[in-house]
C-alpha cells in the first residue's frame, strides 16, 4: 500500500431484520418463495391500503441500539423517500430521514492483529426494502417480484473511522457478529440478509480534511468488502497521482471480474422529497418498552467480556476474542461449564479449534467437536493423562468422530506413561543400545540428549512425558 496516502472509509450496512412478518404489513417474510406470493394489499400498494408498523421490528432496532450503547429516540418519525422504480410499488420508500430510531453509539472492532478499534456508529434507522426487478427471465420485459417489498431493514451507518480495507471488512464482520449475537438477523449473506455499502476516499497522509468520496454499493461478503475497497483505494490514488480528480459517484463491485465500475453519477444529491409519512403516527418509545426489550436481551459481548475476566481470571485480550462472536462465547462457556480449565479451554478454542475451522472453511456455529468432547480433552491434559502431543492426535480424531475422549484414550492405549519403573526400564534399554551417543554426551555434547529423548519417546509410542524422560536420562548418565 502506498503510504503517501491515507484511506478514509465509512460503511453503511443494511441489516434485514429477522421478524416474522413485514415491517408495515402482516405478510410473512420468506426467502425463495414463488414470485409475488408473499405480497398482500399493502405490499402491492393497492389503492386505499395503509401501512401498520410491526412492533417486532421496533424491538429489534431498540435491541441493536442498546447493544451499542446508543441513545434510543423517545419519538421518531417515518418519512417518505420519493422516487419512481417498478419494484418500489408505492412510488416511495418508507424510511427515517431526520429522526432515526437509534442515535450515536460505539462498536469495538477486533482486528486480525489482535488489537481493538472503537468505531463510532452515526445512526441506525428503520426502513422497508424494495422488491426485485428480474431482467433475465423474460425477453423484452422486466419481471417484478414484490416478495421482498416491505421486508424490514435496519440501516446502520458508521462514521468514516476506518483507515484500511481490512478495517472496513472487520467492521462489517463485527456488525454481522453483533446482529447474530442479538438474534435480530439471520446473518445469511448469500441470501442478502446483510448488504454493505462502503464510502471511500483518500487523502495525503497526515491531512485531516476529507477527499472526495465514492460509494461502492451492495457488497455482500466480508472478503469482497476488503477487495472492493482496496481496488477503490488504488484506483483513487492512481487518479490523484496522475493529477486527476475523484468524481463523486456510485460504483458497483463485480466479484467475478474483481473490479469496481461506475453505476451512475451521484450529483450533489438526488431530490427524494423526504417528508413525514402522514399514514403513520410519530413512533413513541416509552421507557417501559425500552426496559422490556432490555430484559429480553442476551448478555452483551462487553458484559460477558468483563465477566470472563472476573470469573475465570483470563486476560482481557483473550476474553475479548472469546466474546467477539456469540458462537465462540457459547462454545467456551459450555466447555467450561463441563469442568474444563478456563484458560486451557480458551487456548484450545482460539488456537487449534480456530485453525481447524479455518482449514475446513467452517465457522463456530458448526464446530464438529462437541463442548463435551473438548472439555474431556482439556481435563485429560490437565490431569496429565494425555501428553500435549497425543492431545493433538485425539483432537484430530474427535474432529471427525463422535467417540468420547476417554474411549479413544483406552482404545488406542494413549494413557501417558508415568510409571517410573516402567519408564526407567525404557530409558535403560535406550542408553544400552546407544553407547556412542552416551559417550558424546558425557564428553559435553549435550545437544545429543534430544536424540536419546526422541528414542525413548518412540519406544514409548509417544506416551511418555518428554520432561520426565529428560530428567531420568540425566540422572542415569549422572550429568
Amino acid at each position: 500500500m502506498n503510504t503517501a496516502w491515507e484511506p478514509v472509509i465509512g460503511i453503511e450496512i443494511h441489516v434485514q431484520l429477522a421478524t416474522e412478518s413485514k415491517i408495515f404489513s402482516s405478510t410473512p417474510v420468506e426467502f425463495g418463495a414463488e414470485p409475488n406470493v408473499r405480497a398482500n394489499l399493502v405490499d402491492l400498494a393497492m389503492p386505499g391500503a395503509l401501512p401498520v408498523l410491526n412492533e417486532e421490528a421496533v424491538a429489534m432496532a431498540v435491541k441493536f441500539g442498546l447493544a451499542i450503547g446508543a441513545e434510543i429516540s423517545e419519538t421518531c418519525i417515518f418519512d417518505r423517500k420519493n422516487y419512481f422504480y417498478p419494484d418500489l410499488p408505492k412510488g416511495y420508500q418508507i424510511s427515517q430521514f431526520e429522526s432515526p430510531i437509534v442515535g450515536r453509539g460505539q462498536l469495538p472492532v477486533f482486528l486480525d492483529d489482535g488489537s481493538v478499534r472503537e468505531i463510532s456508529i452515526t445512526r441506525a434507522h428503520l426502513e422497508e426494502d424494495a422488491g426485485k426487478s428480474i431482467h433475465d427471465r423474460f425477453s423484452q420485459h422486466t419481471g417484478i417480484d414484490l416478495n421482498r417489498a416491505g421486508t424490514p431493514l435496519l440501516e446502520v451507518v458508521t462514521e468514516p473511522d476506518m483507515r484500511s480495507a481490512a478495517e472496513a471488512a472487520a467492521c462489517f464482520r463485527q456488525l454481522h457478529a453483533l446482529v447474530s449475537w442479538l438474534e435480530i438477523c439471520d446473518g445469511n449473506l448469500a441470501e442478502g440478509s446483510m448488504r454493505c455499502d462502503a464510502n471511500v476516499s483518500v487523502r495525503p497522509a497526515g491531512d485531516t480534511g476529507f477527499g472526495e468520496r465514492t460509494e461502492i454499493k451492495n457488497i455482500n461478503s466480508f472478503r469482497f468488502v476488503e477487495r472492493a475497497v482496496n481496488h477503490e483505494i488504488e484506483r483513487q490514488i492512481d487518479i490523484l497521482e496522475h493529477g486527476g480528480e475523484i468524481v463523486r459517484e456510485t460504483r458497483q463491485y463485480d466479484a467475478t471480474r474483481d473490479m469496481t465500475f461506475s453505476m451512475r453519477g451521484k450529483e450533489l444529491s438526488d431530490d427524494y422529497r423526504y417528508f413525514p409519512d402522514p399514514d403513520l403516527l410519530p413512533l413513541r418509545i416509552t421507557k417501559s418498552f425500552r426496559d422490556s426489550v432490555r430484559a429480553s436481551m442476551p448478555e452483551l459481548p462487553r458484559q460477558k467480556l468483563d465477566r470472563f475476566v472476573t470469573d475465570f481470571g483470563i486476560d482481557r485480550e483473550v476474553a475479548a476474542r472469546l466474546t467477539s462472536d456469540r458462537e465462540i462465547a457459547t462454545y467456551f462457556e459450555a466447555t467450561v461449564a463441563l469442568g474444563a480449565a478456563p484458560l486451557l479451554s480458551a487456548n484450545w478454542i482460539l488456537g487449534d479449534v480456530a485453525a481447524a475451522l479455518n482449514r475446513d472453511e467452517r465457522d463456530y456455529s458448526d464446530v464438529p467437536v462437541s463442548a463435551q468432547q473438548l472439555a474431556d480433552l482439556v481435563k485429560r491434559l490437565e490431569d496429565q493423562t494425555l501428553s500435549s502431543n497425543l492431545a493433538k492426535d485425539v483432537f484430530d480424531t474427535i474432529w471427525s468422530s463422535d467417540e468420547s475422549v476417554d474411549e479413544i484414550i483406552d482404545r488406542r492405549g494413549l494413557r501417558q506413561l508415568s510409571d517410573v519403573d516402567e519408564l526407567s526400564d525404557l530409558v535403560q534399554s535406550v542408553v544400552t543400545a546407544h553407547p556412542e551417543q552416551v559417550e558424546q554426551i558425557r564428553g559435553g555434547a549435550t545437544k545429543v540428549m534430544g536424540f536419546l529423548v526422541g528414542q525413548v519417546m518412540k519406544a514409548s509410542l509417544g506416551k511418555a512425558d518428554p520432561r520426565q524422560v529428560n530428567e531420568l536420562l540425566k540422572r542415569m548418565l549422572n550429568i
Partner: protein
Amino acid sequence: MRLYAGVQELRRDLHERKYSATELAQFYLDRISAFNDRINCFITVDEEGCLERAAEFDRQFGSSTNQPLCGIPIAHKDLFCTAGLPTTCASNMLKSFIAPYDATVVKRTSDEGTVSLGKTNMDEFAMGSSNETSFFGPVRNPWNPNRVPGGSSGGAAAAVASGMTPLATGSDTGGSIRQPASLCGVTGLKPTYGRVSRFGMIAFASSLDQGGPMAHSAVDVYELLAAMEGHDPFDSTSADVSKTVLPESNQALVIGYPEAFFDGLDKHIAGCIEEARAKFEALGHTIKLVELPHVEAAIAAYYVLSSAEASTNLARYDGVRYGHRAAESDDLIDMYCKSRTEGFGLEVKRRILTGTYSLSVGYFDAYYLKAQKIRRLVRDGFLAAFENVDLILAPVTPSPAFEIASLNTQPIEMYRQDLYTIPVSLAGLPALSLPCGFVDGLPVGMQLIGPHFAEGAVLGGGIAFQNVTDWHDQHPDLEATLGS
C-alpha cells in the same frame, strides 16, 4: 313507500313488512334509472348485487338478529374500495380497476345490514369543489341541473337530494362532504380526523381525508356514523375512542359565532345563518362571539399540504401493477409519462405538480414547513375558542351552487369555495353541514363545528335545530325540473 323517508321510518316499515327489502331496493333502483342519466350521480349501479342482498335479508327478516340498518339502501362514494365492483375514483387511471377487498367503511356498513346500490360520482381523486373534474362527466345539482352539486362528494349529495338513496358515504378533505351537502340541501358530517377508518378509502391527502355520512337529516347521519365509526387496526391514524353518543336532553349550550367568517359573505346566506342563530337562541342556547385567528392563511396552507401529500399518494399509479397503462411506450420512463399523462385529468396533474414543487429541495421550508406551522396555529385558534364555547356556528360556502363551467378556468376562485370548511379540516375537527334556508331557490347550509371527538354534541345541536325547522325536509321536484 315514501320518497325521502328517513332511516327510522324505513326500519319500522321493513319490520312491519309494509314492504320487503327487495321492494325497497327496487324502489330506489327505479328512481336511479329514471333520473341518473340526467343527474349523473352514480358511476356504477349494482342492480344485481343489490337485489341479491336485499333478497337475502328478506329471507332473514323476523329473526331477532337483524342489524340496525338491515335492508336499508346505501350508496358509496367511488373512492371506497369494494371487492368485485369497480372502484374508479372518477379517474381514467382507475376506470377499470376492481379492488380485491372491501374498505373498512364498506365492510362495517355492510355488516350493519345496509344494501349497497352502487358507487357515486365524485371529483377525480376527490380533488375539486364542483364535481366537474370527474372522468365520468359532471354531476348536476338536483335543484337546478345547470348548477354544480359541489364536490368532491357531489354524486353522494345529489343522490341523497334526489331521493335515489336514503344514505350515502362521502369523504371530506377540505370540505368535500360539507360543501356539496350545503349546495344540495342535505345533511352531512365530517367526523373528527381519526373517527372513521381510512383503510380502503383511496387517499387524496392522508392527514386530512376523513370518511363520513350523508343523509336527509342529522338523525340519519348519526345512524350511519354509528355504522362507520370505530378504531381500525388497519389504519394507524384511526383513533381508539368510544362510540358517538347523542346528548340525552336539550342542554343549554354556548355557541360560538366567528364574526370574521361573515365579512364578505353573500348577504342572503348571512341572513339564513342569522335566522338559524335566532332559532338556537330560542332553543335556550347562548351565542357568543369568538375569534378564529389565522383562518385567512388556511386556504394557502391547505393547498400546499394537501397537494404535497397527494403528489406522493398518487405515485403508486404508475401503470406497473394495475390501473391505466399506455398502450405503446419506448422505455420505462416513457411508459410512466404516457400512462400518467393519459390516466390523470387536469386538476389532478395540477395538484401533483404543485405538491411535488413544494416538497422539493429549496422550497420545502418556504412552503411545506410554513404551511404546517399555519396548520398548527389554526388548530390552536380553534382549541382556544373551544375553551369558551361548546360549538361554533359558521357558514359552509361563500355562495349558493354556482353554474356549471363558470369557475372551470379560475382555480383560485374554485379553491375559495372551501374558505369556511378548510380551517376546520386543518384543525381535524368534526363539523356537521345542514340546510338552513334558500337563496334564489337554491339550498344553503350552515356548519356546526365541535371540539375533537364531540360528534355527539354536534349532532345533538343539529337534531335539535331540525326538530324545530323543516329546511331539511325540502326536496327538489325532479319531475318538474327534469321532466320524467
